[in-house]
């Protein structure tokens, strides 16, 4: 399982760096892994994919803060048989349909519009900054005392047609109403 080993090696290097302090893992390296992990805890509607060979797309809007970390993380990975690909969108107009859309703080000004445009078509929006306006990303990374925390807006997720695993909700701050199922 070379992918797993590679993945583990990456994480190990990351944690080793964190423990050493000097080479503490970059915040984005952690976030890149988190993005990948979201594919496990979020259920996308079936219409989000054209067919079985339609790639699972992680899009990055704005300046790519991850560097090679995201590419390293998703290399060789699949989600329910769909190959994982990373697409970078320079501006709001470049945004193509994708399953996860990370909105960098550099593109936060356009974020509200972009979020609005994808809020109903099964795109999990993620950002590490607050988005001004009525719209917000579904999951936001919070950096609390050098530890990354999640804040999840379940209302937006429901709007987007996504089902977020309760497991993901438990360690996260939850905004909105969790339906009483």
């Amino acid at each position, binding site marked *: 399982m070379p992918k*797993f080993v590679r*993945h*583990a090696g990456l*994480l*190990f290097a990351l*944690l*080793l760096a964190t423990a050493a302090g000097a080479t503490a893992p970059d915040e984005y390296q*952690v976030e890149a892994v*988190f993005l990948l*992990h979201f594919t*496990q*805890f979020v259920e996308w509607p079936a219409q989000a994919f054209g067919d079985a060979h339609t790639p699972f797309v992680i899009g990055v809007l704005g300046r790519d803060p991850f560097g090679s970390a995201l590419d390293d993380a998703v290399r060789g990975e699949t989600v329910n048989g769909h190959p994982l690909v990373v697409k970078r969108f320079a501006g709001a107009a470049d945004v193509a349909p994708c399953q996860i859309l990370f909105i960098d703080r550099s593109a936060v000004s356009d974020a509200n519009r972009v979020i609005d445009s994808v809020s109903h078509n099964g795109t999990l929006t993620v950002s590490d900054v607050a988005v001004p306006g009525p719209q917000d990303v579904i999951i936001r990374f919070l950096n609390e005392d050098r*530890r*990354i*925390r*999640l804040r999840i807006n379940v209302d937006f997720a429901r709007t987007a047609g996504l089902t977020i*695993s309760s*497991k*993901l909700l*438990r*360690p*996260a701050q939850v905004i909105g109403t969790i339906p009483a199922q």
Partner: protein
Amino acid sequence: MTMNTKVPAIRRQLIQMVLLTSGAVLLLTVTCLFAYDFLTFRQTSQRQLDTLGRAIAANSTAALAFNNSDDAQTVLAAFEVDPHITHAALYRLDGVRFAVYPSNAAAGEFPAQLKADGTGFRFGRSDLVGILPVTEGQRRMGTLFVQSDLGAIYDRMRLYAGIVGLVVCASGLLAYFLSRRLQQRISGPILALAEMANAISTRHDYSVRASNVGAFELDQLTDAFNHMLGTIQSSEARLHVQLGHLNLLQHITHAIGDSQDLASIAQVVVTTLERSMPLQYACIARYDATVGTLTVSTVGAASQAHSERLALQPGTAIVLDDSVIAACVKGQLIHEPDTRRVALPLLQRLAAHDLGSLVIAPLVAERTLFGVLIAARGEVGAFTSADCEFLKQLSEHVALAARQAELNSALQLAYDDLRRSQQTTMQQERLRALGQIASGIAHDINNAISPVSLYTESLLEREPNLSERARNYLTTIQRAIGDVAGTVARMREFYRQREPQLSLSRVDLNVTVQQALQLTQARWSDMPQQKGIMIEVRTDLAQVPTEVMVAEGEMRDALTNLIFNAVDAMPEGGTLTIRTRRVEPSSADEPARIYIEIGDTGIGMDEATQRRCLEPFFTTKGERGSGLGLAMVYGMITRHSAELQLDSTPGRGSTFRLIFNAAGGLTVEPAFATPAIEPQPLRILLVDDDPLLIASLQEVLLGDGHDVTAANGGQAGIDAFVAASGTAQPFAIVVTDLGMPYVDGRRVAAAVKAACATTPVILLTGWGQRLVSEGDIPPHVDRVLNKPPRLVDLRAALNDLAVTAPLKRAQPGRSR
């Protein structure tokens, strides 16, 4: 029966068996359950841990994925639900520990790092460790370490052990009480049987029986036991009967061993049988093979009454079927269990007198039937086969014993005969030796007195001028010489052997009596007188002729013996009476009888002695007597067809009476009564070795006018005769002595006859009478004369022979 105390009782063994069986079964069951439960519980524990771990792992994926250790810690806290989970920890994919449970646990209680590989469960000594992967979807998030102590298992095992202990105790108790109760159904009857066997062996009562208990095998055992008891009981009864028979047989055998004759054996057998067997009737009958009849010989004492009613007293003949006799001869026992159904007369009689069953056992020895044993009982079929077998065996024993007794008595008889003939032979040998001595003595005496006799006779005859006194003296001398000669002659008679054939002569018994008395005078007169005992002798002799035809010597011997016995019977003295009488016959056809009685007044004889006194070798005189005296008398009496009668009273005396037939015809005068013969002168050759005899005889013959030539010795005589025979004056007659050295009278006679067959030869002998009576006249001898020769006899002989000689000469060729 002794009980081995080391061997446990069947009761205890049964209980032990039940307890052991139930305990083993219980133990096996419990062990299986225990093992099953242990394994199951381990699996359950593992599965529970797995389930719980997987649940926790599933819930901790997000915490791991998003690096939230607080949340992980919270999730791990859920392990609190199971108090046996002691430690738990979450490790990230890189092996770094991420969160621990309990939160305050020391870091050393967990593995420092845990690699992603090597998941699963491992049982330790006291714990169960599980390593579980934490995955979300298909993505591995980390690893969960869970450790659970096995206290639950051990708690459970302890609980189980307690329960098992209780169950085992309870079931053991239950099994004990149940088996204790149930074993009695098996051990009870067995113990009862054992006790019964024990009791039987001590009491020897085989009539008891065990009762069934209602269990098949035990009932079989009981039946077999009872059957065995029955067999033993009947065997014992049989044994008892046989023992009784054996005892009886031994008793009878022992008793008949003491009996020596068939009669007493038979008496013992029938008496013992009727008492001990018992029998109502028992008898023994003798079988006579020559006529084929059975005769009752012995009847049991208790059977006498029956015997009279049945007409089967001793001496009665028994009429039996021939087939019955034939069977008996073959040695077959005849058993008639019911006398009423057989038509034989004997059986009909028995049946009529209430004797229902009968056994006839043959007495067979050496294949010869000599009698039968008849046994009868009142009831029908009263004789068992054992009884019959016993009677058969007994009869064989009795037959053997009887045969033995018979042989024994025959042997005794043969032995007695042998002893008797041995003693007779010895006696005869003694007599023969005595006779030879006496014969020699007689010869010498006769020779010695011959000159005395011749001279005395010659003097008396030819000297008419003798004084009266001298004549008297010579007469006395002549009679004395005659007595001496008579005594010597009788002595010879006394010892000489018996002739095979009697030579009877006419004997006057009165004379014989006198002779016997004279001969025995020493015994009845001289010897008693030396001891101061007086024996008076009375003779009462008949005045009528008492002549009988007897062998004179034997007659005299008999009288002598009787006189000796009479003297011996009077050790204190007494009277000896000898009487003769003549009894005329009642009818003319019968001869007159002459009686001689010899009576004494001595000790007499009792009846037994009277009965036996004639037996040879029977004596009351101890060593002094030969036991042959009366036997000889009896033998003589028998040979002469005479009678012997004996009257005797103990203390009063005995009288022997001999009865002869009187001799018929006239009384013959003695030979010496012949008239004197005128002697004819003859030329005589006198041959003797005794000069005295030659001298006296020569002188006497010369006195008669004969021409006498004397030759001293046999050879001289022959020479003289031969010398003279060729001359003109041959010897007309030869007188020669018999006993001479070198050439005896027989050879002289032979030589004379050889020379001249017609010359008569007169033989003079001291043994003369014996020669004549024994028919031993030697050849060539014409006349035998005894010494001392009496002139009368000599002259008569010379006269006879001289007269016949010329006649013989006229008839040549006839010689004697």
